[in-house]
């Protein structure tokens, strides 16, 4: 079963807000000067911000903010966020891999940006909605 796709828009303002809320002030997430100096195309989103947005999709699919029992991802490609009002978009889809008898649902998740996968091995286990 495929779950409804979700799209998250990400702008520079979102990265600044996430930096403050998370305490991760690595300048590659807000300074083009420093991001390009270390070989990136420009400012990139925090991997943990992408993971948090995907986590939102997971809890919304599960129908409960406290339903996640296991959640893991591999970061494969940076999400480059241009300095304009549009920013970029992350598309998230998932399929149900398994529903266990003890009430757990396992999801295989795909997250892309500009058609390229930004995560791999993205999986979540949630308590099955009653």
């Amino acid at each position, binding site marked *: 079963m495929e779950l409804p796709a979700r799209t*998250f828009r990400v702008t520079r303002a*979102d990265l600044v*807000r*996430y930096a*403050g*809320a*998370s*305490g*991760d002030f690595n300048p590659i997430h807000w300074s083009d000067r420093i991001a390009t100096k*270390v070989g990136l195309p420009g400012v990139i989103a925090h*991997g*943990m*911000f992408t*993971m*948090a*947005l995907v*986590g*939102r999709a*997971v*809890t*919304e699919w599960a129908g*409960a*903010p*406290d339903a*996640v*029992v*296991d*959640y*893991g*991802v*591999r*970061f494969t490609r940076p999400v480059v966020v241009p300095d304009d009002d549009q920013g970029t978009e992350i598309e998230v889809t998932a399929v149900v891999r398994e529903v266990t008898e003890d009430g757990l649902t396992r999801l295989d998740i795909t997250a892309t940006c500009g058609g390229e996968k930004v995560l791999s*091995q993205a999986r979540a286990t949630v308590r099955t909605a009653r």
Partner: protein
Amino acid sequence: MSLDPSYVGRTYPPTAPYQVGREKIREFATAIGATDPAHHDPEAARALGHPDVVAPPTFPFVVTMAATQKIVEDPALGVDYSRVVHGDQRFAYTRPVVAGDELVCVSTIEDITTRGGHGFLTTRTDITTAAGEPVVAVWSKLVVRGEA
């Protein structure tokens, strides 16, 4: 400089307790656009059986940052932080983090490998309450990119 493989299995002392504040959870939830009332309204969280507002699933990473920093900055381990990228991240929850929690992190280096000139460092951080109740286990794999 490559990572010292003799660090595998090393466990670091518990961190000072992290006090999870209600406003911090609200701020974090707002920053990721999580609007579920259980992240913001204690009554909504109580209706789900929690004592106070519930943190989103990736919030525990914030709690582990100080512990991870301590490992990464250990000069003997040999991590060049300017070359670090985040490889993998995983959370296994006993229960969600809620406002009012006092959380302690104990980190262990689970694995160190070198492949293709890059170093890979896997840490496991067990987050418990100050009283020792398990809350969530957090794995991070950091990649230390080799010199080109």
